[in-house]
């Protein structure tokens, strides 16, 4: 990643090589067909090339905006958004009916979700 590029990275440079696209696909639990691999390689490099323009900005002293409320200086608005931790009452109440939830599962014994075997003996 260049630190002071003023133009998007030229595509020929292939900032992200194919092996890295495949590694990311593995992390994201995605399978990519051969034709998809080439397409994603092209698109990721084009998009990240555009994203590289963010490096034109000096953000050393800029706090990251992790939530909408953190940048609001107006006390009126801040009161609304920055209410601290929003906690509900610690009281027992009904949740969704288990039967109805399990009815939407692909495979279940009615109590648990069933999946293919994880550990081989």
């Amino acid at each position: 990643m260049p630190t002071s590029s003023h133009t998007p990275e030229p595509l020929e440079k292939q900032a992200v090589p194919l092996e890295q696209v495949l590694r990311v696909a593995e992390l994201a639990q995605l399978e990519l067909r051969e034709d998809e691999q080439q397409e994603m390689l092209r698109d990721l490099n084009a998009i990240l090339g555009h994203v590289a323009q963010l490096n034109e900005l000096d953000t050393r002293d800029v706090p990251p905006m992790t939530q909408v409320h953190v940048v609001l200086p107006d006390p009126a608005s801040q009161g609304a958004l920055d209410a601290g931790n929003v906690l509900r009452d610690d009281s027992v109440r009904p949740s969704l009916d288990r039967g109805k939830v399990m009815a939407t599962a692909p495979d279940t014994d009615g109590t648990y979700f069933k999946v293919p075997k994880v550990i081989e003996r």
Partner: protein
Amino acid sequence: MAELKSMSSSTSQTTPRTIRSARHAIVSSETSAVALADSYYDTIAQEDPKIHAWLSLSRERATAQANRIDDLAKSGELANEEALPLAGVPIGIKDVLVMQGAPATAGSKILENYRPPYDATTVAKLAAAGAVLLGKLNCDEFAMGSSNENSAYGPVHNPRALDRVPGGSSGGSAAAVAANMAVATLGTDTGGSIRQPASFCGVVGLLPTYGRVSRYGLIAFASSLDRVGPFTHTVEDAAILLRVLAGADPMDATSAHHPVPNYAAALNTPVKGLRIGIPDEYFAEGLDQEVRAAVEKTADALRAAGCTLHKVSLPHTRYAVATYYVLATAEASSNLARFDGVRYGLRAQDASTLSTMYRRTRDQGFGKEVKRRILLGTYVLSAGYYDAYYRKAQQVRTLLTRDFLEAFTQVDAILTPTAPTPAFRLGEKTDNPLEMYLADIYTVTANLAGICGISVPCGNSSAGLPIGAQILGKHFDEATVLRVAHAVEQSQR
């Protein structure tokens, strides 16, 4: 409120098209809620084969609700204007919001047979206010797209020009209102997905402030950006709906404890004296000349209505699309991890191990754009790239938001085009994702900053395509945004 003329349906010369007129017609026995719902279903049967706005219809639930409303009307319980403000009003729901027992595909094959066991808070609020919920509306898969061409169930066609896209991702929601297949609809907006399709289809689309409307029951795309809001024919209807939808929800910890005003009543306050900001950055290279002319005419109309116009600067605008596509995809990659074939939706049948099952399920279930965004989001969050991309984008998000906070010390609202062009042709941009993303330039900024906005029709191109003006407002100042949009609407009459 003047009755809007039907565009296409032969039976609808007298069919009410606005919330107030629909409710009035039922309360005064000019029609019944059941007859009104039937009339809208007839229009859907007639129009939708060429538009494809609807993915499923919930006629049983709609009829039950309509019968209930008719009983209440007969017993005089709706005589009070404040009772059930949406009594009998036919409304459609974008398919990323859940309705108990109805399909909720999010435009994806991975949720094809999912029937959620509960109502989203916004759906429950509409029902509690008397709305008749007609069914679920087509959209880009997981709300990822600007043209509705990413729906796994096929694209929506723009009712104003069938060879054009309706915009996205809430394309079905916009098209349904434009084609008189619903009085109003719900959409969602993560980077423009309400305002841009509203602009393309010639209807009103409202983006409420972050936290204003509950997201409980919304299938999440990017949680720091996602909003739920209405599509309507008129600004008044958007105001009426926002009052129903807004408010804190114990089921959504990001919903705000902020008083909900009577937005429709606020429309009676004249706009005279309001300061309207015009940002140069939104009238730069890439803006279609007819869109520019229409928005400049809108500025003149607001001046004629007594507003004052001021140049404002939003200097980081050119970084908005890059910032948005880093943050939105990062959040999406995390949110969409839940689609793994275990608890709901599709499961690949041919896998013998758990990890193969995950991968095949996601491979078969997700479309190309969704995979592209998950990959990009996973990449920018991965070890070694987090600071360079994700944290950097969060910092630029701060700068973009400061731009707005600074501008709003000088003006009450900001006027811009909603989109750089009118609706483009189906297939025109599908080969180049980056080009499609760049067209979101005027809308992603409001999502990043958390502010509210609206798209209101402000004219037509020479080809007869609708053009939308975007009004942006301060956090929780929807009332001002609606008032300015109302003045724009009046100037179009």
